[in-house]
């Protein structure tokens, strides 16, 4: 194929991908009148105020804070709980082990949406509505299956001699796990953390049914509410969208290798 055709195709698709994003960022800098006549181009006058007003208010920071707290708690818990479980499945033979693995891997079969109503009842009966943990714990539970699978496959590849040597030297299971397995597992820890973080950061349905109080809203809930309030002020909505996706986009470009590999390797499961 000639390079001309190749690059023409690539630039065309890249344009189609980028134009909505660029127009969103630029739209946030426009006045409403400017946006109406000129949705594509640069602003006639750069209205920094659209952005500063959002950044100066507490609403944006509260949404980001809630999302961050929930995502970080979800990542820490998922990584701990699933790494420990995977370690047991790989290193310890016990009655019922195969059954329990299959039981947990059942979680791969269905999306959270299928059981959202009984899940809501369960969260309510545990008194966790309008509570961070009401979102964190179910998210951890639904992330377990794929995380355990990733950890298990990785732990299996670690040389068995390591384990034997550690046991002979009098190292217990716990210390072996903490001081040898985990430090050797940095790549897979990063992968699992990336997948779980992105899932939590972007999740919508679960927070939607768990949170009623606006002060607890995560950013996807908050931005939907904001769009509802300012539905005709598209310039403000676009500025708000830009500011909410900014952290994810910055993170993506800063750690793109990890993120691309993490998000795709998570799906290439056995």
């Amino acid at each position, binding site marked *: 194929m000639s390079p001309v055709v190749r690059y023409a195709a690539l630039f065309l698709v890249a344009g189609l991908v980028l*134009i909505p994003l660029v127009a969103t960022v630029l739209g946030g800098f426009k006045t409403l009148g400017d946006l109406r006549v000129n949705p594509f181009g640069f602003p006639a006058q750069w209205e920094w105020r659209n952005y500063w007003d959002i950044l100066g208010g507490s609403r944006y920071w509260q949404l980001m804070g809630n999302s961050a707290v929930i995502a970080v708690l979800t990542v820490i818990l998922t990584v701990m709980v699933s790494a420990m479980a995977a370690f047991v499945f790989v290193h310890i033979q016990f009655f019922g082990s195969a059954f329990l693995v299959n039981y947990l891997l059942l979680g791969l079969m269905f999306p959270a949406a299928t059981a959202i*109503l009984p899940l*809501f009842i369960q969260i309510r009966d545990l008194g966790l509505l309008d509570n961070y943990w009401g979102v964190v714990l179910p998210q*951890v539970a639904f992330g377990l299956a794929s995380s355990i699978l990733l950890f298990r496959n990785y732990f299996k590849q670690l040389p068995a001699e390591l384990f034997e040597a550690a046991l002979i030297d009098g190292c217990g299971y716990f210390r072996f796990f903490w001081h040898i397995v985990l430090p050797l597992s940095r790549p897979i820890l990063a992968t699992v953390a990336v997948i779980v973080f992105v899932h939590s950061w972007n999740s919508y349905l679960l927070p939607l049914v768990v949170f009623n109080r606006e002060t607890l809203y995560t950013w996807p809930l908050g931005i939907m509410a904001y769009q509802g309030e300012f539905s005709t002020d598209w310039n403000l*909505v676009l500025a708000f969208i830009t500011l909410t996706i900014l952290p994810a986009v910055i993170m993506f470009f800063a750690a793109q290798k990890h993120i691309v590999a993490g998000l795709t390797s998570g799906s290439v499961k056995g």
Partner: protein
Amino acid sequence: MVLFFLPPAILLFTLFVALPMGAAGWYSFFNWNGYGVPTNFVGFRNFVDLFQNPAFHTALGNNLLIIVGSLAVQLPLALAMAVLLADRVIGTTTFRLIFFLPYILAEIAAGLIWRFVYDGDYGLLAKIWESFGATAPYVLSEPELAMYAILIVVIWKYFGFHMILYIAGLQQIDRSLYEAARIDGASRWQIFSRITVPLLGSTIRLSVFFAILGSIQLFDLIMPLTKGGPSDSTQTMVTFLYNYGVTRMEIGFGSAVGVVLFLICVVFAFGYKRVLMRHD
């Protein structure tokens, strides 16, 4: 050790995944608003009602449309871009990042961005329309157009993910096969259809699997665009579950939708893995 390391996982999974899933099966036989205990046993009536509901028929049709659109447009596009970007030529890394970018955006944000694109007063599409001297339609308010508009967003959002899978698959293919084919006088198309595609088989089957499963579960992206409207024209199974089960607190009926969705996912996943992916 086992007693210490395993219980957190088992406990969380049981409380928040297994029990609710089992409860969905139980609740689906009741008419229940969520308060007290379910006592109004209605047998299979929730399921009968569900399959007679015209909005659910629309939802099934829309899920099918997204599946067909994904397979017919999104995956070929992803494969084409992967082939163009598999060799290390100038700019490949940048193009890969650009194409993958929509995938990392939250569905809610992507949906709102496209709601702006499609807006009849301020949107990009309206402006393009105007430049041809025509009045812009409110794409998302037209029952005949809205679902196709959503399909375009689905393709925009997810083709980069499939492209990355294909690039990884292409890099596994032994380059000497291409050399040999070229020496034997094979055309570009022959090389692509006889070598690339067959050797990419397991990757393609995996990507088809994800595309279909994702299409069945489509929800987050639709909420900011249309919420399932206008007049139920863009419902999918999950938006139907949300609009008819969750917002109305019809626990029994909503659970029945959940059970049907669950069965569709399980039958598809098992069937697909058994039949198409058994050698992968």
